[in-house]
């Protein structure tokens, strides 16, 4: 892409990471692109594709152990790859600024947010005193923060995630840099908040003349706010060009995989129809409140995490639980699995009450798969042991029989049997999660609780893991409590759904009915945000109509 007068011009950039052994690995390999003033480039790729390393290099920064091996990064004609550290430092914040992924860790926790914006103005723009304060408040106001004057006096922990990200944006834009680099700017946010922050970024893009680079694993974000896209894999550029062209007619197979893997609500559901069979689990008026244990008694804190929760799961049925972070859905999973005990109400499982103390049979019949696949496997034990142990505990198999059964479970989940001997870190995220699923199914449970099991996985792996999970679930006729914030996962898998907010159930019913005709205003917003993202992600259709 040759641009007449680019702000940023990257040529044949290669970045090498040196392992302690001395061998080098190219994490960015021969990347070239130009960016005109006002243009927005989306760099998309899965984890490990080198996109974040590239983003840092645009600020002239390399992680320890890595170095720019070849190529140039010309920002307004000056080469950042060959600039002395002092000159780079003077440039950062003024000419090029960055918005990192996690807004909480990028703000100083003991400074009022207004002061943090002022600090940038003082150090980078040379403005101080009352003038800096005014400009800081104006900037915060510009970021769409309500009552900026009062908000400026708050500390980062007193703000919501979306508000924090707006403050970070204000800091980055304080000196109106020629280039703004955003690294996964919305990954840490809820769907609704994400849509709002993306709208802000879209507005800023139009208002400002500076160029933007947005690094993301989420193609919906690219479709939503970028005009150019670059798809990376293993440090190389797979495909680049205007968003319109790449999304409508992707040339490379990998791009097509990424586009196809972005799960969308408009896809056909694979969930089985609701089964009016035997009730497996019944929750009646469940209430729960987190307590802070002190030496003498337990003290309740804040409002209840869960209040008046009631639902049923039938044998072999998949029930989806949707909610944003803080809705209490993970706590609900903890209650069902027995990690927590309810303060009010009761759970009835297979006709017997479920307490915190459970019989071995009850423990065997309710299993769980966790969110983070790596942390759900003991890093110092071979993954096979994770599956063999429950087989021996629950089915009393001897070691040899347990190994054979574990190998069969691995095979059913598409894992090679020799992976049994590996350690968790030697497996990919998708493999780790399938091992965790194998461990859960080893017990042959009647109910499986899945807590956000795909949110830590790359898009192309998510579908694969869900397919294997669904196949296993059908094979063993296991009921599932599927907890997620991802509406498309629920749409694909669950026959009935429960929508939660602030510890209460707002709406419940058959998935198709709730998705097509949501009754509660909150559900409507939630689905609206998702369908906006889905519409943006469904760029092919939309763009074809737009161009046609």
């Amino acid at each position: 892409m040759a641009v007449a007068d680019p702000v940023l011009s990257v040529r044949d950039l290669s970045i090498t990471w040196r392992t302690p052994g001395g061998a080098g690995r190219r994490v960015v390999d021969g990347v070239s692109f130009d960016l005109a003033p006002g243009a927005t480039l989306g760099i998309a790729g899965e984890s490990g594709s080198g996109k974040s390393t590239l983003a840092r290099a645009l600020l002239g920064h390399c992680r320890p152990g890595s170095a720019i091996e070849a190529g140039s990064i010309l920002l307004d004609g000056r080469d950042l790859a060959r600039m002395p550290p002092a000159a780079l430092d003077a440039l950062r914040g003024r000419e090029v600024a960055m918005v990192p992924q996690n807004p909480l860790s990028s703000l100083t926790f003991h400074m009022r947010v207004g002061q943090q914006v002022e600090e940038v103005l003082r150090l980078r723009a040379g403005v101080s005193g009352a003038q800096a304060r005014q400009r800081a408040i104006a900037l915060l106001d510009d970021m769409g923060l309500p009552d900026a004057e009062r908000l400026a006096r708050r500390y980062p922990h007193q703000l919501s995630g979306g508000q924090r990200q707006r403050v970070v944006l204000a800091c980055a834009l304080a000196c109106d840099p020629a280039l703004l680099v955003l690294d996964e700017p919305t990954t840490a946010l809820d769907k609704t908040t994400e849509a709002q922050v993306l709208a802000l970024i879209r507005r800023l893009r139009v208002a400002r003349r500076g160029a933007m680079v947005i690094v993301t694993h989420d193609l919906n974000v690219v479709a939503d706010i970028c005009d150019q896209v670059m798809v990376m894999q293993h440090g190389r550029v797979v495909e680049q060009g205007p968003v319109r062209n790449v999304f409508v007619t992707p040339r490379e197979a990998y791009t097509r995989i990424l586009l196809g893997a972005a799960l969308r609500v408009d896809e056909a559901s694979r969930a089985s129809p609701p089964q009016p069979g035997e009730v497996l689990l019944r929750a009646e008026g469940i209430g729960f409140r987190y307590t802070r244990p002190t030496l003498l008694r337990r003290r309740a804190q804040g409002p209840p995490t869960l209040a008046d929760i009631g639902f049923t799961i039938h044998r072999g049925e998949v029930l989806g639980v949707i909610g944003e972070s803080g809705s209490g859905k993970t706590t609900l999973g903890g209650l069902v699995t027995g990690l927590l005990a309810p303060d009010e109400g009761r759970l009835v499982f297979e006709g017997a009450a479920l307490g915190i103390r459970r019989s071995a049979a009850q423990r065997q019949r309710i299993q769980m798969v966790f969110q983070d696949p790596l942390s759900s496997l003991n890093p110092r034990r071979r993954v096979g042991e994770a599956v063999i142990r429950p087989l021996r505990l629950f089915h009393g198999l001897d070691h040899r029989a347990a190994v054979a059964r574990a190998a069969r479970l691995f095979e059913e989940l598409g894992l090679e049997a020799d992976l049994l001997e590996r350690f968790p870190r030697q497996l990919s995220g998708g493999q780790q999660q399938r091992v965790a699923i194998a461990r859960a199914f080893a017990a042959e449970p009647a109910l499986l609780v899945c807590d956000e099991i795909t949110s830590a996985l790359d898009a192309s792996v998510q579908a694969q893991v869900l397919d294997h999970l669904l196949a296993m679930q059908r094979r063993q006729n296991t009921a599932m409590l599927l907890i997620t914030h991802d509406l498309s996962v629920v749409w694909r898998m669950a026959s009935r759904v429960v929508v939660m907010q602030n510890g209460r159930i707002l709406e419940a019913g058959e998935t198709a009915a709730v998705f097509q005709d949501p009754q509660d205003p909150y559900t409507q917003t939630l689905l609206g945000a998702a369908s906006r993202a889905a519409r943006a992600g469904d760029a092919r259709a939309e763009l074809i109509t737009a161009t046609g």
Partner: protein
Amino acid sequence: MKALLRRPMTLLGIALVLGHLAIALAAPWIAPHTPTSLLDAPLEPPGATYWLGTDDLGRDAFSRLLWGGRVAILVAFSAGGFAVLGGTLLGLSAAYRRGAYDDVLLRLVEMKLAVPTILFVAIFVTGFGQTVPVLIVAVSIIQMMGVVRTTRAAGIVLMEQGYVRAAQLNGEGGAAVVVRELLPNVLDLMAVEFALRASSALLLVSALSFLGLGISPPTPDWGLMVEDGMALLNSEPWLVLAPALAISSLVLAINLAAEGLAEAFGLDAARGGGG
């Protein structure tokens, strides 16, 4: 392991520790004189016969120096070992059980930390007698407190991990969770703690001997040698400097080795254990 061997300071530390251990073990065979025999030649200056001269009772200072680490190292290393083993089990069990057990244990640790170390040992030794086993127990208890706190903190983080929860959901008992799930994940911490506790125990033992609360005369010991030589610091400074140097070189060596170990383990974690 390779990363460990490429650090010169770590290598120096390991070499010095091994050297000290070798000398301590071989002292009966390599010492030129018996460390406790009175040679009827007090306060000889260093020379060909008595390499570091003789002390005020006429004992060969060089032989005493070679012998002087034996008991102190024995006490320091065994106390370090007991402290790490006991402290880790206590710390991890506290992280596992939390609640009242955890509270009581932590209050005990804090109470111990509030009592001056020397006073604690003085009371202990007065009560149980000034023998090497009593000394090992006393020093172990002192060193254990820090280990309880670090391993408890690590354990609390581990308790949140999915694999611990999975084990609990499968009905594994407390001992199984602590030993099978938690312990393997704090082995690196234990190795580093052992090195730190052993070096700190060595300093403590020497200080106790110096004060007359540790190893009793006539056993040759560095701390005792420093104490004996203090009166002669102006005329025969080598009688103090040599054992002092022996203590500090071993403490320094253990710390260098520990630091290298810590970094090597940290590096392993960052590299993903070869994944």
